[in-house]
C-alpha cells in the first residue's frame, strides 16, 4: 500500500525522511547527553545562578550560539522550501496548462458515490493479456461521453490524466464537499460544489487501484469507494 515509487511523493519523502532523521537524532542525542551529564549528583551541587524566589535570575545568553541555531534551521528550511516549490509546479501548476494532450475525464461526486465521465476516446486492444482480469461489460473501448459503466474508472496507461472534479447538483442531491483520493498515486483534490477543481496524474503501471473519499461528507463517508483500472499497454 502507499504511493507507488515512481510518484513525486517518494522522491520528496526520501529527502524529508533524511532531514527529519538528521534533525531528530541531533536533538535527541543532545538531549540525552545533557540529561546524563548534568543530572544532580548531590543536592549540594553548585550551579552558576542561585534561583531565589522573588528575584529575576541572572540572564544568560550567548549571541553566536543563538545566531547559529537561528541561521542554520533557516538555511535548511529555505532549502526545503525550494524543493517544495518545485513539487508544487509539477503537482498543481503544470497540469492545468491546456497545451499538453491530456486524457480528460470528469469525476462527479454525490452523496456516497462517484460518476465518471469520459471526454476522450481511446481504444484499448484486448489481447494485452491483463485485460481479461477486468469486467468491462461493453468490451474494451472507452467512448467519448460514456458514463462509468459499473461505477469504476478505466484509464489509459502512461497518459497525463486531467480529471475535472464536480459535485452532482440536480436539485435532489445535497451538494457537500467530497475529495477523490487515490493513495497509490498520492493525489487528492476537493470536489467543491459551485466551482470546478482539477486533479491530474500520469499512471505508469497497469492494475487496479482503490479510490477513497478524503473530505468528510456525512454518514457513509467511509463507503464511497470505487476502483480505478489502468488498462492498455504501458509503452
Amino acid at each position, binding site marked *: 500500500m502507499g504511493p507507488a515509487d515512481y510518484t513525486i511523493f517518494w*522522491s520528496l519523502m526520501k529527502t524529508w525522511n533524511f532531514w527529519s532523521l538528521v534533525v531528530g537524532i541531533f536533538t535527541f542525542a543532545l538531549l540525552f547527553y545533557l540529561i546524563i551529564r548534568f543530572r544532580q549528583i548531590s543536592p549540594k551541587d553548585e550551579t552558576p545562578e542561585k534561583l531565589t524566589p522573588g528575584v529575576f535570575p541572572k540572564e544568560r545568553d550567548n549571541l553566536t550560539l543563538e545566531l547559529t541555531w537561528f541561521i542554520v534551521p533557516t538555511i535548511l528550511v529555505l532549502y526545503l522550501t*525550494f524543493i517544495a*516549490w*518545485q*513539487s*508544487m*509546479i*509539477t503537482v498543481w*501548476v503544470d497540469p492545468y496548462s491546456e497545451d499538453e494532450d491530456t486524457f480528460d475525464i470528469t469525476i462527479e461526486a454525490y452523496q456516497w458515490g462517484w460518476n465518471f465521465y469520459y471526454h476522450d476516446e481511446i481504444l484499448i486492444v484486448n489481447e494485452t493479456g491483463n485485460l481479461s482480469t477486468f469486467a468491462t461489460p461493453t468490451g474494451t473501448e472507452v467512448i467519448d461521453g460514456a458514463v462509468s459503466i459499473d461505477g469504476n474508472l478505466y484509464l489509459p496507461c502512461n497518459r497525463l490524466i486531467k480529471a475535472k472534479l464536480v459535485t452532482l447538483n440536480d436539485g435532489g442531491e445535497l451538494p457537500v464537499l467530497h475529495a477523490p483520493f487515490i493513495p497509490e498515486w498520492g493525489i487528492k483534490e476537493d470536489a467543491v460544489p459551485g*466551482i470546478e477543481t482539477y486533479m491530474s496524474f500520469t499512471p505508469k503501471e497497469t492494475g487496479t487501484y482503490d479510490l477513497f473519499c478524503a473530505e468528510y461528507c456525512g454518514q457513509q463517508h467511509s463507503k464511497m469507494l470505487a476502483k480505478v483500472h489502468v488498462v492498455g499497454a504501458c509503452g
Partner: protein
Amino acid sequence: MGEHQTGWQKTLYEKTGQDVYFWNFVFLMVFTAIEVGAVYLSLTYGATVFALVSVGIVKFFGIAAFFMHLWDDERELTYTFACPFIFVVILFIGIAFTSPGGVAGLPAWCSPEFIGSYSPTAP
C-alpha cells in the same frame, strides 16, 4: 475629558463659543450629506467608490479622534486601537480579495508558473 486645554481647541472655544465636540458633530453631519449626495450624482463606478471610501475614512477619523478623544489621550491608546487593523488587513488579503474569481485576474508576474519558471528543472 480634554476640557479644551490643548491650544487650538481653546481658541476654537473662545472664538465660536462651541467646543470641539459640537464642531465635530457638525463636521460629521456635513460629510454624511456629501456621501448621500455623491450617490445621487450617479457618477461612474470608480468615482462613486472613491467618494464613498474617502468620506468613510474622514468620518472614521472624525469619530475616532474627537468623539473617542484619541486625539487627547495617550498615544498608547491609539496603538491599541490600531493594532487589530493589522490583522484585519491580513484577513482582507487572505479571505476578502482571494475569492475564486478574485485571484484569477492576477498579473502574470505574480502567479506561481512565472515564479516557478525561474528555478532549474524539477528534481
